[in-house]
């Protein structure tokens, strides 16, 4: 017997849970504390937004909302590593990555507030909207990457999917086609341990989710998703490989969903308080704050001041959302086809007619 192939999965981590550096070989971007402070501020802004969005739902001013509590390092790390003309195909809670790319908080609120105009991003024109059918966005990103490759454009398509979504055939299909065509494609598996009520261990017998990319011939690595430096470093590397024509990657970001699945869920029904309590000690803001404070580039005073700025910004976005009047009834017809089919015109007229009664 002989071995025809062997594989291993590296684990990337720079910051320990106590906020101390675990290794000396800091990536270039992380050597500039100011750059890290800028990213930390983005993480705080997302936390502020998320808290407010949940409150809006609880007070009846927003529909069902999927919180991103605990995902801040993963989302900001991924979004900030991408170039603007790359394409992001998110699932439905990756607001941090999207804010960095120019999606406005008011657009997130419009979407969960029941208004399609939320997906008409004023920022990244080619990014995909939130994707509810689990994992399907992975293949759209692979198709986008195929378009970039065929047109010889130095762009990368990035898909984000959850640990639950890593079980979908679409996700495997994206991995497989990215390998078969050598696509500039990066699949980010956000392993937050829970797919609604089903824990990570019930999704798969695989020891890591990163290794799912091995079968497709992609570069695979597992990353501490609560460590912003690790997330950003792993993304930078994967994007560089893809952009240089060296193919795709699967990155598993290990993090924790500190919130319910959505505001319609109650996670206390299926997971222990102790587990959540322990997860709070590993959450991403604490360790980066500790690290930056130790470096002397961040303080409680600065944090209080920045939180005030965040709250103001979020309030402005919330007000913009709340003051947006509902779309005209004709909008449900007018964007379905480029030209309204005659067949549908009568139904549109009917809807207008009912408006005037």
């Amino acid at each position, binding site marked *: 017997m002989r071995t025809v192939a062997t594989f291993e999965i590296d684990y990337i981590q720079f910051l320990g849970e106590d906020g101390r550096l675990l290794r000396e070989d800091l990536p270039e971007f992380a050597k500039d504390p100011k750059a890290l402070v800028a990213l930390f501020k983005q993480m705080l802004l997302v936390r502020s937004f998320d808290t407010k969005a949940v409150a809006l739902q609880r007070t009846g001013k927003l529909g069902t909302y999927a919180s991103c509590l605990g995902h801040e390092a993963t989302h900001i790390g991924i979004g900030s590593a991408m170039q603007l003309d790359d394409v992001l195909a998110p699932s439905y809670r990756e607001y941090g990555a999207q804010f960095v790319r120019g999606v406005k908080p008011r657009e997130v609120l419009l979407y969960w507030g029941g208004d399609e105009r939320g*997906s008409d991003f004023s920022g990244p024109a*080619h990014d995909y909207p939130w994707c509810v*059918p689990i994992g399907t966005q992975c293949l759209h990103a692979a198709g*986008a990457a195929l378009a970039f490759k065929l047109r010889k454009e130095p762009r990368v398509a990035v898909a984000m999917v959850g640990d639950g979504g890593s079980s979908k055939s679409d996700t495997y299909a994206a991995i497989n*086609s990215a390998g078969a065509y050598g696509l500039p494609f990066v699949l980010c598996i956000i392993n937050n341990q829970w797919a609604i009520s089903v824990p990570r261990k019930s999704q798969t017998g695989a020891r890591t989710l990163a290794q799912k990319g091995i079968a497709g011939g992609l570069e695979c690595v597992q990353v501490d998703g609560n460590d912003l430096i690790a997330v950003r470093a792993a993304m930078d590397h994967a994007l560089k490989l893809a952009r240089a024509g060296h193919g795709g990657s699967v990155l598993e970001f290990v993090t924790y969903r500190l919130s319910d699945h959505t505001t319609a869920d109650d996670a206390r029904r299926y997971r222990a308080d102790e587990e959540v309590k322990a997860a709070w000690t590993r959450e991403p803001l604490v360790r980066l704050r500790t690290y930056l404070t130790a470096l002397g580039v961040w303080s409680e005073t600065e944090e209080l001041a920045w939180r005030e700025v965040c709250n103001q910004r979020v309030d402005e976005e919330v007000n913009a959302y709340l003051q947006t009047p509902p779309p005209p009834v004709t909008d449900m017809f007018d964007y379905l086809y*480029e030209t309204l089919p005659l067949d549908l015109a009568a139904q549109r007229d009917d809807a207008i007619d009912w408006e005037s009664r």
Partner: protein
Amino acid sequence: MAAITLIEAITLALAHEMEADPTVLILGEDVGVNGGVFRATAGLQQRFGDQRVLDTPLDETTIAGLTVGLATQGMKPIAEVQFDGFVYPMLDHLICHAARFRNRTRGRLTCPMVLRVPWGGGIRAPEHHSEANESMFTNVPGLRVVMPSSPQRAYGLLLAAIRDPDPVVYMEPKRIYRQYKEDVPDDGEALPLDVCFVLRDGSDVTLVTWGAQVKETLEAAEKMAAEGISAEVIDVATLKPLDFDTIHESVRKTGRCVIVHEACRTAGFGAEIAARLAEHAMYDLVAPVERVTGYDVPIPLFRLEMKYLPSVEKIVAAVQRTLAAS
């Protein structure tokens, strides 16, 4: 100009648009060197290269998902699914995404794509190779559903489908792929995607059909003409959006309507046409609308499949019932 078959007209239209528009590309299983299992893409990879005609991994979900990704990022993909019975894994991408991207992003992202589906029974094929599933697509807002029934219409409608800025499901009646030849000028002239074709004028009854059944329906009309019955024959061709006006106009004249389709009866597309006749043409009708359709069973394997499909005899019998009713 040589006379060509329906499948050759499809190849001709594909080549015409590949030549005219560099963003057009073809993807599917075996579409490359092999030219597709029905030869629809024969010679195209040799002519346009493997960056324009791409073999995919053997997974229909992959084809559909990649097609949506390509279409939303500035390409015009034409996807081929090998057989109608393999289209089901693609529905998630077609229904949840292709048909909705324009609407759900308020026009920011669009999905101009064509899915070519060899369609229908009657070719003594193995299991899952003979499905008439067009009404699954006509029920989806945001799609267009097209089915040609002649070489000329195959050419003109495929050009229109490729040029359309929205997703089109282009269903190809494989039983008549090579039924007959006709002259098809390669003039780049597209046909409209929302107009029915009146193939034969008549005054006693309107026969409404599409796809491979156009053959039997025309034969039935010819046979009845010998008996003094004048049948008008309409090839719907563009099922969604439906040109109901052409059908209504004909029924106003004839007062009778027989709808012929291969798909099973319940919620088949004939039901939609019959419902619209009930809504808009009740007082024009002198007899109940008749449907000649497949039964509400999976299409049988080939020892029985011709007993499932509409036949000339069944169509004539239905017409005679409408005549007897008034």
